[in-house]
């Protein structure tokens, strides 16, 4: 983990610079009341596609709130190159409807960029569509991987999120680190692509570090299940040293509660690779200390030295009485990246850039976001740090937080390039 620490220090070091840049940028923007020279006068149209019902409603709502907060803030500061930002929202539902709404935002609303989408199936449908339509699509999640194989290794307009299995890989690394003595593991994951990919990746990585570990059983509740008493009975039967789960939505507190009520954590450790997706619902009363909890790529108090984060979390809490979850930073980053890419293009071209030009600058961009610098790699996949740690009750809230926070860098937990084979990559690791 030595590398992690070093990168972390570098990150925090960059924080001060980033914040400075941001403040300077804001000052300049405020001066521009009218659109800059060579920039069209109408508003910048940004389409957003949050999921607002069912399981994806929890992260979807957070992302949509963030998008609105960002737009307000940018508009108050004069917009993008003096153009106001105008949001058009279309809900993410089924693949068929997403394709229809995406077309509407492109052809009818004439959006300059579309952000959003979370479900992988929808990503697989919209990804090729964005390329066909020549429309910039900056995904929140919704990777375009089929299983762990990327279906669109080279894109011009689709900017995808992190790999689905990144959290599972991180979870396995930390399991090997914090619980080196476990012998048996049982998995409970949702019966769909994300759950299955996570379980496979977790097993592969943990085996790599700890070849003697046995995976005794795997449970597959369907996505959207809301009662786990039967699964708890099966987990008890498995009687493993550690329980691994990649739940990320409203099912996390339910599983946690019912497991604690049945005394499951008296015997077993646990690794909730993505449980931070609903972290504020994990109340201390039913969440034990000392289990691994992953927050994806955004932990609402990862540092005190990054003003962007502090300001955002406070504003978010003041407005919604909740602490933000990971999808907020996906949402914040994609917008900020778009804005800075447009500004960078403008500084070179002296006019408002085309979608293709923005896309070119977005490849490889790094911008200050809520959890530090975050960027797109050359293969147009999001590259960011992941936050994980052991749960703790030592905080002023009524829910758990993590201490011994580990920052997992993209180098550690993401395949080096979009077309890479995941399991070959893992096999190539040094122990």
């Amino acid at each position, binding site marked *: 983990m030595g590398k992690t620490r070093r990168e972390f220090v570098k990150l925090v070091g960059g924080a001060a610079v980033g914040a400075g840049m941001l403040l300077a940028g804001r000052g300049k923007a405020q001066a521009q009341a009218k659109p800059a020279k060579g920039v069209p006068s109408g508003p910048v149209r940004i389409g957003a596609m949050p999921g*607002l*019902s069912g399981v994806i409603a929890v992260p979807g709502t957070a992302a949509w709130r963030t998008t609105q907060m960002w737009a307000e803030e940018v508009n108050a500061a004069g917009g993008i190159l003096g153009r106001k930002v105008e949001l*058009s*929202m*279309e*809900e993410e539902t*089924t*693949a*068929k*409807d997403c*394709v*229809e*709404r995406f*077309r*509407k935002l492109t*052809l*009818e609303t004439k959006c300059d960029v579309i952000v959003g989408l979370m*479900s*992988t*199936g929808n990503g*697989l*449908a919209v990804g*090729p*569509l964005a390329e*066909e*339509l020549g429309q910039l699509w900056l995904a929140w999640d919704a990777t375009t991987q*089929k299983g762990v194989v990327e*279906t669109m290794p080279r894109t011009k307009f689709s900017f995808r999120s992190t790999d689905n299995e990144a959290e599972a890989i991180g979870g396995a690394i930390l399991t090997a680190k914090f619980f080196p003595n476990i012998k048996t593991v049982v998995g409970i994951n949702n*019966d*769909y*692509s994300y759950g*299955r990919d996570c379980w496979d990746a977790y097993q592969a990585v943990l085996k790599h570090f700890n070849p003697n570990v046995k995976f005794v059983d795997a449970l597959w509740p*369907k*996505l959207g299940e809301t009662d786990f008493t039967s699964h708890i009975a099966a987990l008890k039967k498995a009687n493993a040293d550690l329980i691994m789960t990649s739940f990320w939505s409203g099912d996390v507190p339910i599983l946690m509660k019912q497991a604690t009520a049945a005394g499951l954590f008296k015997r077993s450790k646990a690794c909730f690779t993505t449980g931070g997706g609903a972290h504020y619902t994990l109340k201390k009363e039913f969440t034990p200390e000392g289990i691994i909890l992953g927050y994806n790529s955004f932990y609402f108090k990862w540092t005190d030295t990054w003003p962007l984060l502090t300001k955002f979390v406070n504003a978010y809490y003041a407005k919604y009485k909740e602490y933000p979850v990971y999808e907020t930073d996906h949402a914040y980053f994609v917008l900020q990246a778009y804005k800075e890419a447009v500004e960078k293009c403008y500084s070179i071209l002296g006019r408002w850039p085309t979608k293709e030009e923005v896309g070119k600058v977005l490849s490889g961009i790094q911008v200050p976001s809520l959890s530090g610098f975050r960027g797109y790699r050359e293969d147009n996949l999001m590259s960011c740090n992941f936050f994980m740690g052991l749960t703790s009750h030592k905080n002023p809230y009524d829910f758990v937080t993590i201490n011994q926070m580990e920052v997992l860098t993209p180098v550690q937990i993401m395949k080096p390039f979009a077309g890479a084979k995941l399991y070959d990559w893992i096999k190539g690791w040094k122990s």
Partner: protein
Amino acid sequence: MKNRQEIARLKSLKLPLVIVIGLVLLCVPLFAGQFFSYLMLTFFAYAITVIGFNLLFGYAGLLSFGHALFMAVGAYTAAFLTSTFALPYMELILVAAVIVSAILAALIGALCVRYIKIYFAMLTLAFGMLFYTFLLKFYYLTGGDEGMRVLRPYLLGIDFSGTPKMQFLAGTYYIYAFVILAILTFVMWKIVSSPFGLCLKAIRDNPEKAEYLGVSVKKYRWYAFVISAAYAAVGGALLAPAVGQVDPGLTYWTQSGTLVFMSLLGGFDYFFGPLIGGIVYILLQNSVMSLTSYWRFIFGAILVFVVIVAPGGIAGVIGSLVKRRERRD
């Protein structure tokens, strides 16, 4: 006497009216934007499905709450043929969709048509959900929740991969889908006005009497079930290339509810009712979804309103208005 002439005159008006509306629909890409053409394209696919659905619902009086199953069968057929087997011939896809769905419907239908009313609805719902679970579970075959890609098909053996996608959809593919809709509408018109269609109505209104008169009630219901399933599969097969992706959501029970909603909204007592319902539903959904994130509430309210106030649907309302005018004249 005068009244009867009036009705005859109105009936003779109907055909030209249908032709005019059809021509307007065909010409949509000429005057409307690409997106509107795309919406109409999805309407064609749903139109074929609901015409078939209404043979069962409106004419045979059987409410299927799992009909999205057959739409999904058609859509997945298109996905398998274009992606897995690299046989992107649209005609082949349509024929395969009809065959697969007819075989499946023959089996499911044989079980379902033994029941009517709520039992029929529940049994079809159970089969629809069974298929949904199947699509999710057998992911190595169906791609699970991620679904499968549908590649662009050849139309009449011609490869259009040179044309930009939207141009293809709003051009050649649009006309192709329209022609299929026109043919299938005509065929359905022939079916419902044939002795077979009349028998179905007789069965719906009084099954005991029909049986007494020598009509094999179950067999006729079974035929209707298979035909309507084949229509739904064609609809699904046409929809899939337009969307480019199929997923199990296509066969969830609420999707079947949408088909019922369309038929009811338009008026299932009328031949063209479900078509009106389909187009109104699609246009309404398009604007309401953009308007508010509480669009489900509005749609629920519309459904409740139609059920309580206008059970005849839009066609029913128009029909009664026309009748009232006739009486006044």
